[in-house]
C-alpha cells in the first residue's frame, strides 16, 4: 500500500475513520440524533448516509436511553453499532443503559455475550458553549468497570483510536474533545499508531512530567514550550486512553524526571486526575522529588461562557504547579 499524506482536522479524521470502518465491515452501523442528512451537529457523520444508505447510518427518535439500549441489542445480534451522543451532557439519559448494561453484559454472562459497540461523545469545554454543552464526564465512565474510555488529542490519534474502538470486542466510550475538532494535522495513511491502552510521550523533557489527555494535551504542550523558554525541560505524556490505563509508560516517564503534574479539565475532586496522581505515587514514590500536583477544573458546575476561562486549566496554572514541585535552589 502506498502511503498517502493528508492534512485533516480532527473532525475530518473521525469522519474518515467512520467511513473506512463502514466500508471494511458491513456489520458496522451508525445511528443517533441528526447523524443522517445533517451529518451530526459537528458534521462528524457528514456524507455517511449518502454513501452507505439509510440502513447503515440513520437518525433515531430523540431518546438517548433508547439509542444506547438499541445499540446493546444490535451488538447482541451480530452488529457493531456506533452511536453518537449529541453532547456530553445529553448522554445522561443513557447513563442507566451504559452503567447497568453496556458495562456489565460481558461479566454477567460469563463472557458469553460481548458488546462490540462505540459510544461517541463530543466532550469537554473551551468552545464557549452555553449550559449543558461543555461537561467533562470522563470520570463517570472511567469509574464504571467494563467500559473502555478513550480520549484522542490529535487528528491522527482520533482516526487510529476510533478505528480500533470500532474493531474492539468491548464497548468503548469515545470522548472527542470539542475544542480540538477543528485542529489540523498532516496524517499519514495507513495510520500507524499504538493501540488503545497505550500512552505516548508527546514531548521529551528531563525536569518534570506533565500528564494529560484529550483537550488538556495541547495545554500541556504549550506549557512545556513556555517552560523551555524559561530554562525548564518538561516532558509531556498523552494518555490517549484512560481505561485501560498505561501504568508502564506513565510511570517510566515520571521516574525519568522525578516530578509530575496531571492536567485535566474536569472537576478535580474524585476525578481521573486524582486516580492518576494516586496510582503513580503508589508506584513511583521512591523516584519522586515532590508530591504529584493536579491542575484540574474547579469543583463547580461547568461555568457559563463568560466565566469559562477561569475554569479551564491554562498554561499559567500548569506552570505555577510546576514551580511548586520542590525544586532545589
Amino acid at each position, binding site marked *: 500500500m502506498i502511503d498517502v499524506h493528508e492534512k485533516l482536522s480532527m473532525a475530518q479524521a473521525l469522519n474518515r475513520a467512520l467511513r473506512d470502518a463502514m466500508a471494511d465491515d458491513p456489520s458496522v452501523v451508525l445511528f443517533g*440524533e*441528526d447523524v*443522517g*442528512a*445533517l*451529518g451530526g*451537529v459537528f458534521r462528524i457523520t457528514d456524507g455517511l448516509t449518502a454513501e452507505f444508505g439509510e440502513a447503515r447510518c440513520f*437518525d433515531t*427518535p*430523540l*431518546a*438517548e*436511553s*433508547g439509542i444506547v439500549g438499541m445499540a446493546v441489542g444490535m451488538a447482541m445480534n451480530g452488529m457493531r453499532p456506533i452511536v453518537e451522543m449529541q453532547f456530553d*451532557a*445529553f448522554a*445522561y*439519559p443513557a447513563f442507566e443503559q451504559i452503567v447497568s448494561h453496556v458495562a456489565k453484559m460481558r461479566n454477567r454472562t460469563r463472557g458469553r455475550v460481548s458488546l462490540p459497540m462505540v459510544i461517541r461523545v463530543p466532550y469537554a469545554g473551551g468552545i*464557549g*458553549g*452555553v*449550559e*449543558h*454543552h461543555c461537561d467533562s464526564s470522563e470520570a463517570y465512565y472511567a469509574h464504571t468497570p467494563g467500559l473502555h474510555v478513550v480520549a484522542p488529542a490529535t487528528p491522527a490519534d482520533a482516526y487510529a483510536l476510533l478505528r480500533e474502538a470500532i474493531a474492539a470486542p468491548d464497548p468503548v466510550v469515545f470522548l472527542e474533545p470539542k475544542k480540538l475538532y477543528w485542529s489540523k494535522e498532516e496524517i499519514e495513511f495507513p495510520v500507524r499508531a499504538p493501540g488503545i491502552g497505550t500512552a505516548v510521550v508527546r514531548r521529551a523533557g528531563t525536569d518534570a512530567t506533565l500528564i494529560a489527555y484529550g483537550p488538556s494535551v495541547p495545554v500541556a504542550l504549550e506549557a512545556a514550550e513556555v517552560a523551555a523558554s524559561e530554562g525548564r525541560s518538561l516532558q509531556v505524556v498523552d494518555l490517549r486512553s484512560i481505561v485501560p490505563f498505561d501504568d508502564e509508560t506513565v510511570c517510566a516517564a515520571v521516574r525519568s524526571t522525578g516530578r509530575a503534574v496531571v492536567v485535566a479539565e474536569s472537576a478535580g*475532586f474524585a476525578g481521573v486526575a486524582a486516580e492518576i496522581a494516586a496510582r503513580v505515587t503508589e508506584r513511583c514514590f521512591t523516584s519522586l522529588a515532590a508530591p504529584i500536583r493536579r491542575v484540574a477544573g*474547579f*469543583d*463547580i*458546575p461547568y*461555568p*457559563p*461562557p*463568560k*466565566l469559562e476561562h*477561569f*475554569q479551564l486549566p491554562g498554561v*499559567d*496554572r500548569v506552570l505555577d504547579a510546576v514551580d511548586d514541585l520542590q525544586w532545589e535552589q
Partner: protein
Amino acid sequence: MTPDSRRLLPSDAPVTLIDATGEAVGAVPDDATLLRSLGALITARRLNDQAYALVRQGRLAVYPSSHGQEACQVAAAQVLDAADWLFPTYRDTVAAVVKGVDPVEALSLLKGDWHCGYDPYEHRVAPHATPLATQLPHAVGVAHAARLRGEPTVVMAMCGDGGTSEGDFHEALNFAAVFQAPVVFFVQNNEYAISVPLSRQSAAPSLAHKGIGYGIPGERVDGNDMAALLTVLGAAVQRARAGEGPQLVEAHTYRMQAHTNADDASRYRDEADVEAWVQRDPITRLRAYLRDRGALTDDVDAGFTADAERAAAHLRDGLNQDIEPNPEDLFAYVYASATPQLREQAALVADELSREGAR
C-alpha cells in the same frame, strides 16, 4: 373503546377558530382579549428578530428563535394567572417574557453571563430547560406540591415534538395522571427536531394521541391560531384548576428558521416548505380578523408597533451592556455555604487575579 376512554382522544383535526385568511370558523374569544394578544404577538415577533440580530452582532452566543411560533408562546403565558407556573425550554424565551420575565434576564443563558438570569420565583417561571423533557417531571412535582399545599396553582409544562420521544416525557405524563396533578403539557410541534422531521420522530397518529395511554385527555390545536390556542389552553388550565387533572395539548406550528443560528437548515429541508407556512403566519391572521371586524384601528396597530420597538430597544440596550463577569460567582452558589475546598479554589482565583493586576 368505552365512551369514557374515547373522550381522551384528540379531535380529528387541529382545532381552528380563525383560519389562515383571517375568517372566524368557530366561537372566537372577545375582541379585547384578542387585541391584547395581538399586541403581545407583535412584540414577541420583534423580540425574536431582535435577538436573532444580536447573535449576528456577537451579543448572544446563540438563539433558538420561536419566530413563527409566537402564538404558542403568547398563549402559553396569557392563559395563566400570576401565581401559576411556566416551565419553558430553550426555545420558549418569549413565553417567559410574556409571563413577566425581563427579556434581558431571560437571555442571560444565551448571552453567556450566567445560566439562569432571572429569579424563578418572581414570575413563577422555571429556569429554561435545555436537556430535553427533563423539566416535565419537575412541572408535575410543582403541581403536586401545590395540590398538597392547597394552592390553586396550575403548571404549564412546555416541550417540543422531539422532546416527546424522551423517557422523561412519558414518565411525567404517567405521574401527572396517577396523581391527578394540575399540569398542562403543551407540545409545540414545529415539525422538526433540529434536522429530524416529525415522521422520523413518532409513528403515532398525532402527538396528542400519546395522552390516552396514560389516561390523559389529548387535544390538538392550530398552533398559528391565537384564538384557538387561547381557547384550548385556557380550557385545559381551567380543567386542571378545577381538580380534573392534567391534559396534553399539541399545537401544530412550524419552525420558520433554522434550529438556531448555528444550524444550516438547507441541509435537510426545502425552502419551499417554509414558504408555505408564511401564508399561515399567526400575526397576519389575527390582524386580518381584527381589522375586518373594525376592532383594530391604525392607531392601535401603530401603538402595538411602538410597544414592540420599545421592547426591542430595551433588549438591545441590555444586551449591549458588558457585565464584567465576577469569578467569585463561580463558587458562591454551588452549595448553601461553600465547602472549605471551594473557598480554597476561590482564593486561588483571587490570587491569580491580583498577580495579574500587579503585572
